[in-house]
């Protein structure tokens, strides 16, 4: 974890209610795909945790959805705006477990952290398949970016307006994969967990207080005991997940 000031380079909408922001600065603590940063926004008390979409040299890419007052304020930040950030938070994905043909499954704004992961796995010569799930065509983003990396990409939309109609789990049939990396809303993760027994790592989202393990605001139960999503997570091993209720 490092506290640092990052400077906004660009901030643009890329889909319905979805924005892409690039920032520059000291990213030395951003070491693994699946980690997140925690942003201090003017006029808000708690920081806003946002997953890292990509790190390229000293440029950080974040993709976020405008869902509340904080993220809407973030969408108003322009080039040159400085943001106090805690960087390098969370455990991130372990790329060493992927096998030869990892499957990446993302839903909505769960897609972004899989981008840097795909890039990392492809650089290591893995055969990467990505299923990117959205509700509808207007919300689809990064399909071409994943393809440009060299991943085999399937897009699903619930209403069938783009790609294959249905949920991400409807795109699993016929796929051959060695490991699963997932990030998305909890109902998606749960459905995926039921749909495939293949080992993997699932990334979770929780409301957080601090984002670095101090407040116990984001604790969840796992087979391996209580874990803080911000610290021992957000990525959990499939075999340690305990679904509540």
């Amino acid at each position, binding site marked *: 974890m490092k506290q640092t000031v990052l400077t906004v380079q660009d901030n643009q909408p890329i889909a319905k209610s979805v924005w892409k922001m690039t920032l520059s600065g000291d990213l030395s603590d951003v070491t693994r795909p699946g980690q997140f940063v925690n942003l201090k926004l003017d006029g808000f*008390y*708690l*920081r806003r945790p946002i997953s890292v979409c990509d790190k390229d040299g000293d440029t950080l890419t974040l993709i976020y959805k405008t869902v509340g007052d904080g993220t809407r304020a973030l969408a108003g930040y322009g080039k040159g705006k400085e943001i106090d950030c805690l960087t390098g938070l969370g455990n991130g994905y372990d790329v060493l477990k992927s096998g030869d043909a990892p499957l990446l499954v993302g839903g909505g704004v769960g897609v972004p952290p899989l981008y840097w992961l795909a890039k990392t796995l492809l650089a290591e010569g893995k055969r990467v398949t990505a299923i990117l799930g959205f509700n509808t065509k207007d919300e689809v983003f990064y399909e071409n970016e994943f393809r440009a990396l060299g991943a085999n990409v399937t897009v699903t939309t619930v209403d069938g307006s783009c790609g294959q109609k249905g949920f991400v789990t409807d795109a699993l049939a016929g796929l051959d994969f060695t490991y699963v990396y997932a990030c998305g809303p909890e109902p998606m993760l749960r459905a995926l967990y039921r749909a495939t027994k293949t080992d993997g790592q699932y990334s979770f989202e929780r*409301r957080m207080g*601090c984002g*670095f393990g*101090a407040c116990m605001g*984001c604790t*969840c139960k796992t087979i391996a005991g209580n874990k803080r999503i911000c610290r021992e997570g957000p990525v959990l091993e499939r075999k340690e997940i305990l679904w509540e209720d």
Partner: protein
Amino acid sequence: MGRLSVSLCGIELDNPVIPASGTFGYGYEFAEYYDINELGSFSFKGTTAAPRFGNVTPRIAETPAGMLNAVGLQNPGVDRVISEELPKMKRVYHKPVMANVSGFSLGEYAEVVEKLDGEKQIGWFEVNISCPNVHGGGMSFGTDPRAAAEVTRTVRSKTKKPIILKLSPNVTDITEIARAVESEGADGVALINTLLGMRIDLARRKPLLGNVTGGLSGPAVFPVALRMVYQTARAVKIPVVGMGGVSRAEDVIEMMLAGATAVEVGAANLIDPFASRKIIRDLPGVMDKYKIENLKDIIGGANK
């Protein structure tokens, strides 16, 4: 002793700044970021007899100039605090520490204090009778002067270390509770714990917190906390530890002028992991600005 030093219940502190329980873990979490021996002391995570998972999530919500939490005293229980957490703490912190203890019965307070009493590094017990996020214990002891007095009497009989009762602001007259615990042998009082609050998620039309209500902290509560510290300091002879929304060196000085002997920093640690250290480092400059030679000279200064 330096300009910042104060004495709390007979124990010298290099400075009056103490990270508050529940915002600083067992210290070692923050020792990764800086040398926490710079602190006056810190109060470790609230300890109960049995392990507690705490409340369902969401446990945290944003508020204007503050936050709500409903963590619900998550902790591994006193035995594992002693066997696992305190050894890790001792490796990184070498001054007297404040042990925050909670209970759901008089017997539980007695058990936790008895077990922790042998830990040499514990300088004070901070007895939490004010947690708003648990049911059947916690705050129910701190909102009734007779129950608060009983907890004090129970804990008093189990330790010779100083006991500081942590009081709830969710009462009509906090000085009544403060006087009740003073009369039963409390060595100090710490206030305020969080103010009971809630938020509703507009999209779901349901309370935002899993526990429905939570405790409000952060700058929003500072004036309320300051007022209660001021009133309490006038009502009792024992030292008052002030807390509630303290975020900068100026706030520490206000708290001390209102009558606080030492000052805890809570929510600020969660927003900025370096907040407590920054406050300590800023104090000399702010003291110079307001022509304060020694901090201990200003305690209760606004009360005179």
